């Protein structure tokens, strides 16, 4: 039984600094993540991710250019995002040589164990629909490559 962790990586033909800007600049984040990203990239900064007419808060944890970037999201509104009520997304950039970077992403917090029931229901209602549309849109983006 695998742990509740998603661990994926990809080799990118670009220097770490370029990959860093792609994953941290809000204008670029809005091309691979949310429709709209209102966020300042510094530790502890609070922002907002918009997916269509829905969205949710995001909190930056680690900013260590150009090697580590992490944030928490999917936590209930009005609560401090901590382990147990949110998902933690951690990016690690490792240069393979001057022109190539290995980008790794680890997502944890899938068990969301301390969510109040009402929040769980709200999350289920909002995200099931939101995610479907998001996936469709992403499929189109990827297909355009």
């Amino acid at each position, binding site marked *: 039984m695998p742990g509740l962790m998603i661990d994926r990586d990809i080799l990118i033909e670009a220097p770490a600094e370029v990959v860093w*800007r792609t994953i941290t600049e809000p204008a670029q984040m809005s091309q691979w993540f949310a429709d709209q990203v209102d966020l300042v990239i510094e530790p502890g900064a609070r922002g907002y991710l918009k997916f269509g007419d829905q969205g949710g808060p995001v909190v930056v944890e680690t900013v260590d250019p150009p090697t580590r970037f992490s944030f928490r999201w999917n936590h209930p509104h009005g609560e401090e995002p901590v382990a147990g009520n949110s998902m933690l997304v951690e990016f690690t950039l490792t240069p393979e040589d001057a022109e190539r970077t290995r980008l790794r992403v680890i997502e944890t917090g899938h068990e969301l164990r301390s969510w109040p029931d009402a929040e769980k229901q709200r999350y289920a209602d909002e995200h*099931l629909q939101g995610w479907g549309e998001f996936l469709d849109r992403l499929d189109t983006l990827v297909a355009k490559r």
Partner: protein
Amino acid sequence: MTATPDDELWSAIGDPSRCQVLDLLVSHGEVSASWLAERVPFSRQAVSKHLAVLERSGLIGRRKQGREVLYQVQPGRLDQATRAMTGRAALWDQRLAVIKRLAEATHAATKENSRNDE
């Protein structure tokens, strides 16, 4: 394709001790709580608690045989959990693919510009 936010299921398999109990059930088929308690580094009472959570999440079922209660994995539910995680992993693969395309395009454009400047 996307993860069903079925939190009872996630919290059931999110605990390492519970995963250990689940692992034993997956590899040994139908077993009793006392059999499990002999093979894990925690108390019989803890085993019973973990079994109750797993049962509530639908991941395992039970059957009475004489005086004994035997537990077994419900493959459909376990499959559902695995598929949901696979779906989220695929979603991240897609995001990484978009990041790769964007970064490589930026890098190619920068190289092109510096060549033109020379």
